[in-house]
């Protein structure tokens, strides 16, 4: 029983990481109609940049701020020089291949720069240590990650639902032409959304690194789980990303803990069943992305 | 005998009833028109009959058979043909290949997966025959994307005819056509075999009164009148609600784009 509670908490931790990833992927898709296959690479890049900063300056909190910012700047450059040239309804495949090419490049360069071995990242001093949970020790850092995920979800939700920028983004999800018709610079919106979505991936990388450690290939593992999350939750909505992340994060963690050889079957079985019942995901907008 | 009938057909979009308990019977071999102002529910009715949308309530019958729960392709296989208001063609394929797709399904040869398509002689003959009937034989090998608008409309009809339907739904066949093209299309529809049951939506009143033997008037999702063209012309309610307003666009002025070709 105690073990189950620990695994359950671990599941929540991983769900929150997946939510931050999926939120970014989903916002980018919803606004720009682009599936960004380099999203996983940005997680890894964020994690490694954070790692380097922690080692150089010894300050986790600064890394938490700077790493997403650097990655966001990189995203703006990519959006401006590459992605912008491929906008259009029937160019999904080309967008996907472009971001796939970027993913290959990043993964190779990351390995070149940071090496091909597993690197662990210590959690910040302030959040190190354990607290007793039902008689078992649980890392404070992981608990705070759950809290952070929930807070971030709430903040994102508030921004999307209650602010002018959020309204523009939401309108863009349903009708990009409408947004540009309102005299809003759609290019600026796209660049901003891509930067924010990518920064979320980098943020997940920094805070996730103490949990997942960092190694080549993690970019792809995390990308696939994120893709499964948005497929299950439905593209283009924050609610979907959250629900999908909970389902997949739990299935992955509990599966690995109890039926380790078949844990992947569990994830894909969940995905298959949800797709059979709801082809556009739990909270997906009907007809999006087709 | 009724070839096509709907009973109590209702469709809600959100809280709005686009179609409200419509009963309609189309006799075998009839030339039956549906008219009504924009937003009257004509297209919704067509979509429900063809199976593009599920009804909120009510049934659709093809002959004696209740087809309400059947998907689009099964209704098509039961003899329901359908042309679309907005051209719905295979844009990058040739005119010939477009019609051939319909004919090859009709002939039941789609599952031949290893025999060259050119070896089916009957397929080619029937396809050319349809093309001749809709006047597109001369355009046979051009891609649809290179056709003029009126020619695409004719191809729409050709595709539907190639399936040899019992009932043909024509959704504004002359929409956006020049007067010359409209005349041609009307002639084409008139030339269709008498045994074919035709249900037509059309804005051009000349076309309607030329073709239709029976007219149903829809308004706000409900049938307000039905009868012969003479009866409809004489009907006071129809005059007020429909013909008096934007309606009766007697085709010459607006209605059509200037001719091309």
């Amino acid at each position, binding site marked *: 029983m105690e073990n189950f509670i620990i695994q359950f908490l671990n599941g929540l931790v991983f769900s929150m990481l997946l939510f931050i990833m999926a939120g970014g992927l989903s916002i980018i*898709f919803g606004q720009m109609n682009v*599936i960004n296959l380099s999203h996983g690479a940005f997680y890894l890049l964020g994690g490694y940049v954070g790692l380097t900063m922690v080692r150089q300056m010894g300050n986790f909190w600064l890394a938490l701020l700077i790493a997403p910012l650097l990655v966001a700047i990189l995203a703006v450059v990519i959006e401006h020089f*590459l992605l912008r040239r*491929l906008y259009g309804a029937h*160019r*999904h*495949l080309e967008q996907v*291949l*472009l971001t*796939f*090419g*970027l*993913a*290959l*490049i990043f993964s*190779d360069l990351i390995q*070149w720069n940071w090496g091909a071995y597993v690197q662990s990242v210590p959690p910040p001093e302030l959040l190190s240590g354990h607290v007793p949970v039902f008689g078992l020790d649980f890392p404070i850092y992981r608990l705070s990650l759950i809290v952070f995920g929930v807070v971030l979800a709430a903040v994102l939700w508030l921004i999307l639902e209650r602010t002018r920028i959020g309204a523009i983004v939401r309108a863009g999800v349903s009708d990009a032409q409408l947004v540009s018709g309102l005299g809003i610079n759609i290019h600026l919106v796209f660049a901003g959304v891509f930067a924010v979505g990518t920064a979320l991936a980098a943020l997940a990388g920094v805070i996730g690194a103490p949990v997942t450690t960092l190694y080549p290939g993690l970019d792809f593992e995390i990308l*696939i789980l994120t*893709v*499964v999350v*948005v*497929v299950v939750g439905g*593209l283009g909505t924050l609610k979907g990303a959250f629900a999908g992340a909970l389902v997949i994060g739990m299935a992955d963690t509990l599966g690995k803990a109890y039926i380790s050889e078949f844990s*992947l*079957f569990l*994830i*894909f079985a969940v*995905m298959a069943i949800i*797709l059979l019942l709801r*082809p*556009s995901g739990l909270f997906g907008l009907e007809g999006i*992305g*087709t | 005998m009724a070839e096509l009938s709907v009973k109590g057909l209702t469709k809600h979009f959100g809280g709005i009833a686009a179609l409200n308990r419509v009963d309609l019977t189309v006799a075998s071999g009839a030339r039956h028109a549906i008219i009504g102002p924009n937003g009257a529910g004509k297209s919704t009715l067509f979509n429900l009959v063809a199976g593009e949308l599920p009804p909120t309530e009510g049934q659709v019958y093809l002959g004696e058979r209740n087809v309400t729960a059947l998907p*689009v*392709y*099964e209704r*098509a*296989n039961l003899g329901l043909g359908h042309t679309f208001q907005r051209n719905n*063609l*295979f*844009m*990058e*394929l040739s005119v010939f*290949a477009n019609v*051939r*797709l*319909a004919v*090859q*399904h*009709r002939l039941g040869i*789609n*599952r031949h*997966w*290893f*025999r*060259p*398509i050119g070896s*089916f002689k009957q397929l080619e003959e029937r396809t050319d025959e349809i093309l001749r009937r809709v006047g597109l034989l001369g355009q046979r090998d051009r891609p649809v994307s290179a056709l003029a608008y009126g020619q695409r409309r004719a191809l729409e009809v050709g*595709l539907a005819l190639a*399936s040899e339907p019992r009932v043909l739904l024509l959704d504004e066949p002359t929409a956006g056509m020049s007067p010359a093209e409209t005349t041609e299309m009307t002639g084409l529809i008139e030339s269709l075999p008498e045994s074919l049951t035709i249900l037509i939506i059309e804005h051009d009143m000349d076309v309607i009164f030329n073709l239709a033997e029976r007219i149903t008037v829809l308004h706000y999702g409900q049938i307000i009148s039905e009868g012969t063209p003479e009866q409809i012309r004489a009907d006071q309610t129809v005059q007020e609600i429909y013909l008096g307003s934007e309606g009766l666009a007697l085709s010459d002025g607006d209605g059509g784009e200037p001719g091309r070709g």
Partner: protein
Amino acid sequence: MTAVDTPLLRVRGWVSRRRPWFLAALGLAAIVWPYLASAIKPFYLSLTIDILIFAIFAMSLDLLLGYTGLPSFGHAAFFGLGAYVLAYIASRSDLALNLTSNLLVTLPVVMLVTAVVALIIGFFALRTSGIYFLMITLAFAQMLFSIAIRWSGVTGGSDGLPGVARPTVGVGPLSYSFGSRTSFYFLVLLFFVGSYWALRRIVNSPFGWTLRGIRENEHRMQALGVRTFRYKMAAFAISGAFGGLAGMLFAYYLRGASPEMLHWSTSGEVLIMLIIGGPGTLIGPMLGAGIIRGFSLLISSYTERWETLMGLLFIAFVLYAPQGIVGMLRQKEKEPDG
């Protein structure tokens, strides 16, 4: 439309007027090549075998993407599965009958298994379309990749399954082994020509035209009465079987199956081959396979950073030649000004 006179079109016209001669010359070159290559540098023959196998793989995806309009990002699933099925058969005890290395056994088993798995994946993936389809095929392929890594008792984990002998045909003393590189080259060449011939026949059949109809306008096909789901399933199965065939040949070539064959970069690579060559042409994907495999094998012997260079190549092609080589030739024909 008036044809314009460009050097490319002139070459094309020249070739098509002399097609029989051209084909004869190509055939002769293909026969002489292994002997010539061994004289220059044996590596070139290996490179040719590699390219021919990937050409089969790319053509198999073309049936889905180019002809049916289904953008699968998980085609490596069938490539890898074909390889693993072969490697698994090869690792079974042989009973001295030459069964487990016998092509007459392995070929049908591999193609049947990959076709069945394709039907299972297709059953779920084909309920969706567009970007969802792309993501779901990616996810399914990844599932096979992870199984290959984790179920090490059967798949050998990250080492894969080594120890696949070159194929044989015939029984007992009457068997022939494609043991030498040259004989294996001719075997692969035979499969390459056979696959092209079979796929060409399939796409020119009524079934193949039905697939084109689905690509152009699936909704209209349904309105004509066609149950499109079934045809898409069939296309998926055929495509999977040919992808499995390519994977099987690659496992014979590498003498083993490895998880990289299931990796998403393999799926991406074959998609790029189609984009470079031009989807929906069969010939284009072949050219794409030649360019990508040739490039990657050549540069990987010069630099460690070949993945970065491949990524740059992908991006360059996506940005500057999105309709592919064959598409560019056709474009020139259609639009004189272009």
